[in-house]
């Protein structure tokens, strides 16, 4: 009796796991199947390398890729010093009370919905940029600033987790030898957790690439390669969000799948690379 219960439970758990894994894989397969026509008609590379000129039949997603990189990379780079400094204070430099209240604040920030960052960005930052720097206001710069604030709490948590996972014996030894807090941080914690800091940066970059709402609301969505921070741009995510269901079989619509596949691959590569870094670390510590 008990045996059969065990078996049923095991089958139940296993089938749930199977369903979860199938769902994950089906998303990639679905995207490839629907995007396939793009790749068949000699479009394999032109999709990624062409401009977007509909009346010449060119539906390349190059401007969207450029827009994504123009927004995601500066945002991550801008967020990096902010996050690193804050995580230093949170792990090493502040006293107990400051560290705890910072931790609460950062955890709270991760819970703020993206849409609210976007909303405040539109009505607070965009007019500011329009009046002080000129242009329409909806531009790469606005999206970069808001996005960098949006991803910083996640980046801070990645960094502080990495710093906090350094073997406590090392820290105690350093402190016993007379190292100050900042010395302990600079010569023990940071060198020991450099891998974790790199992973944190990559994960945050992945989030910046994957974010839809901030770019959609703040970057202006013009299909062109931006040359200036005050130019509008459209990211791949925003391109998908602006889908028009009326023409399901057109090439313009197919370009959405090209964006979807590119995003999937980019984030999957980032994930794989981070896992690889973690494995190296585990291998070393063994």
């Amino acid at each position, binding site marked *: 009796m008990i045996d059969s219960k065990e078996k049923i439970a095991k089958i139940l758990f296993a089938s749930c796991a199977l369903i979860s894994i199938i769902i994950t894989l089906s998303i990639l397969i679905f995207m490839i199947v629907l995007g396939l026509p793009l790749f068949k008609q000699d479009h394999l590379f032109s999709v990624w390398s062409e401009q977007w000129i509909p009346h010449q039949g060119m539906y390349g997603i190059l401007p969207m890729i450029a827009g994504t990189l123009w927004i995601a990379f500066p945002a991550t780079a801008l967020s990096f010093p902010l996050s690193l400094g804050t995580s230093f204070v949170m792990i090493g430099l502040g006293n107990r009370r400051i560290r705890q209240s910072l*931790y609460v604040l950062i955890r709270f920030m991760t819970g703020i919905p993206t849409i609210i960052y976007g909303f405040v960005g539109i009505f607070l930052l965009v007019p500011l940029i329009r009046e002080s720097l000129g242009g329409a206001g909806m531009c790469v710069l606005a999206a970069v600033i808001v996005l960098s604030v949006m991803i910083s709490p996640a980046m801070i948590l990645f960094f*502080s987790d990495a710093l906090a*996972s350094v073997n406590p014996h090392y820290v105690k030894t350093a402190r016993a030898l007379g190292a100050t807090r900042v010395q302990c941080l600079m010569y023990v914690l940071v060198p020991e957790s450099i891998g974790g800091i790199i992973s944190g940066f990559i994960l945050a970059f992945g989030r910046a690439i994957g974010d839809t709402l901030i770019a959609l609301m703040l970057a202006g969505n013009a299909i062109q390669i931006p040359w200036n921070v005050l130019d509008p741009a459209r990211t791949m995510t925003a391109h998908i969000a602006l889908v028009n269901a009326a023409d399901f079989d057109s090439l313009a619509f197919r370009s959405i799948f090209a964006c979807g596949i590119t995003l999937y691959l980019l984030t999957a590569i980032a994930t794989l690379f981070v896992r690889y870094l973690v494995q190296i670390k585990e291998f070393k510590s063994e």
Partner: protein
Amino acid sequence: MREMLEKAVIIFSWAMTILLVIIVATFLGYLLMKGIPSIGSELIFGSTAPLEAIRMKARVFDGLFPAIVGTVYLVILSTGMAIPIGICSGIYLAEYASPGIKHLSGLTFDILAGVPSIVIGLFGFCGAVFLHHHFYHEFGPCLLISAISLAILVLPYIVKSTQTSLESLPPFIRKTGIALGANKLQNLIYILIPQAMPCLISGIILAIGRCAEDTAVILLTGAVATAGIPSSLLSQYEALPFYIYYISNQYTNQSELNSGYGACLILLGICVVLFILTFGIQKQLNYRMLYRR
């Protein structure tokens, strides 16, 4: 030279921390300043009597009530799907799976967790269009499709939090039940799961938060600006985050804009409540484990 560098690091770190605090304070201050005046029963129920609206007797036309109800439906449906499947998968991976399967599934769930939510939304959208073309022409983007897509979005988080919470239990807890004669399933149900409960629950609350706040998925899968309270799983619906998005680029007058700020505050309020719940549960666990130095 070294001392200079050390001083520079200290100054840099504190400057960045203060900058971050100032940014957050400006952000929240601005939102509160603009939003608080519009908070009131007007904002939620418009000109309809609140009691009538809550009992679904009268439709609310100029308030946020339908959007709030839509968001609640969405959260209940999507977590209702994701939680049982996610927790069972997590249990399987933590307790039964071989190392090879663990590795493979860890990989797939990591990838799924990293996929942008808009891509999941696109998946749901295509599913709806596919069903519309091939099976049932009344079918289109709707509450059900959104709920399924959101469930897919939060599934990896639930699986991973379940798996880690079980795997991080100390070995002696695992052995005690077995030593006293419990079999594997009894050990799991009576000892391991209750012990892992706080972690499990905080994972679930995080998933609820994501369902409530995500906009990219519902943007593609059936949220619309005016739909009223959804009458069935196959009807379109309103939701708070979508309403905020809609107002931000379609508002026509000041009072609509004010209701946008109000909606932001309500959504933020929901997230604050969820945050306090998770934090209360996790505080004892995580802070001591990670940040005790």
